[in-house]
């Protein structure tokens, strides 16, 4: 699984950082998404999928 984030679409709601804190953070200056790792360890895959479905701005994409 590979994660891609679209910072220009991100609205800094923070749902990803709340749901999968090991994979996502928020920038200090504007709260937009920071991807901590492009390939989640299997243990984090479920949380990443949750984050994708919770993101209000569809700013996270997964490729198998």
């Amino acid at each position, binding site marked *: 699984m590979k994660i891609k984030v679209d910072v220009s679409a991100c*609205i*800094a*709601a*923070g749902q990803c*950082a*709340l*749901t999968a*804190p090991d994979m996502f*953070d*928020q*920038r*200090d*200056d*504007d*709260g*937009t998404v920071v991807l901590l790792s492009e390939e989640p360890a299997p243990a984090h895959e479920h949380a990443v999928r*949750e984050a994708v*479905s*919770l993101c*209000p*701005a*569809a700013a996270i994409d997964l490729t198998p």
Partner: protein
Amino acid sequence: MREQDGLTRVQLQHGDTAWLVTRYDEVRAALSDPRISADITNPRLPVAVHGRPTFARMDDPDHARLRRVFTSAFTVKNVNLMRRAIETVVDRTLTAFAGGRNPADLMRGYALPIPSQVICLILGVPYEDHQFFEEHSATLFDQGLPADRKQAALTALYTYTHRLLTDRLTAPSPGLIGQQAVLIARGELDLDEAAVSTMALLVAGHETTSSMIALSTLVLLQHPDQLARLRDSDDPTVVARAVEELLRYITIAETAAVRVATDDVEIGGHLVRKDEGLMMCLPSANRDGKFAGADDLDLGRDARGHVAFGFGVHQCLGQNLARLELQIALPVLLRRLPGLKLAVPLEELRMRLGILSVDELPVTW
């Protein structure tokens, strides 16, 4: 209505029609579609009161430009840094409330002062002005009041935040007002726009969370088994889950998400034509079959994904702050006042619609 269809054409008071969007998937689809606009200057938007537009009532790029001024303050990390300050506010407020008259109004004594003090801290608004801004905010949300009263309240609040910002243009000052004053002085932010945003944050920051604290307490008092689950757990994940479920179950923002199509859009098998209005029924979406047994309050369920904070680019800016305030304020109230109960029959409570709330919540313990 929701069971039959996701979108239903409804007749509005002044003769126009609009779409009422009642299902979870359709609400999410509509709120995340860039052709569905929140622009309040569009005369086809089905809302009654037209004040100065806040960024919540603008489309991108203006919406994004103005929202971005505040996003850093409301990140998960920065909100968590407020935990100690919020705990102090909650503890002080609860100590005063528990030591005061019994029975008492939980709204005025607990539910309102907590978010009011917290948003003052964040913005840098003097809390001694709370009666002024609380009263005018209440006027904005009182559906029984005529439009001219609401307009007057809006003007008073706008004049107030405008003055706070102006006073601080020359002296460094704390909070988001100070931060905006720096941007204004540098020519990077417009003073009038900043005053509108600050007003919106001040109002939304205390009105909504106070409603949620009061209504959560009310709902829990009617579900003693669920109340016990929240009261008896010191596991933060249990508390967080419970708060998500209360947000879903209550969904105070009944009429906030109003939109207009700027192009023909297909949603849920219906063709919504350009210039047609849409009203999102967030409470209905949150009782959709997506949530099994949706009409039951179940603090153990995974209610994440609810649309109580809306969805799309306008999703609530302060959602992480609201979550934290509720996670702190609710369990401690139930623990410190274990005998808490309503002091009047349920039917005597006056519910306020629009942003769902109660005028008063008389309790005894």
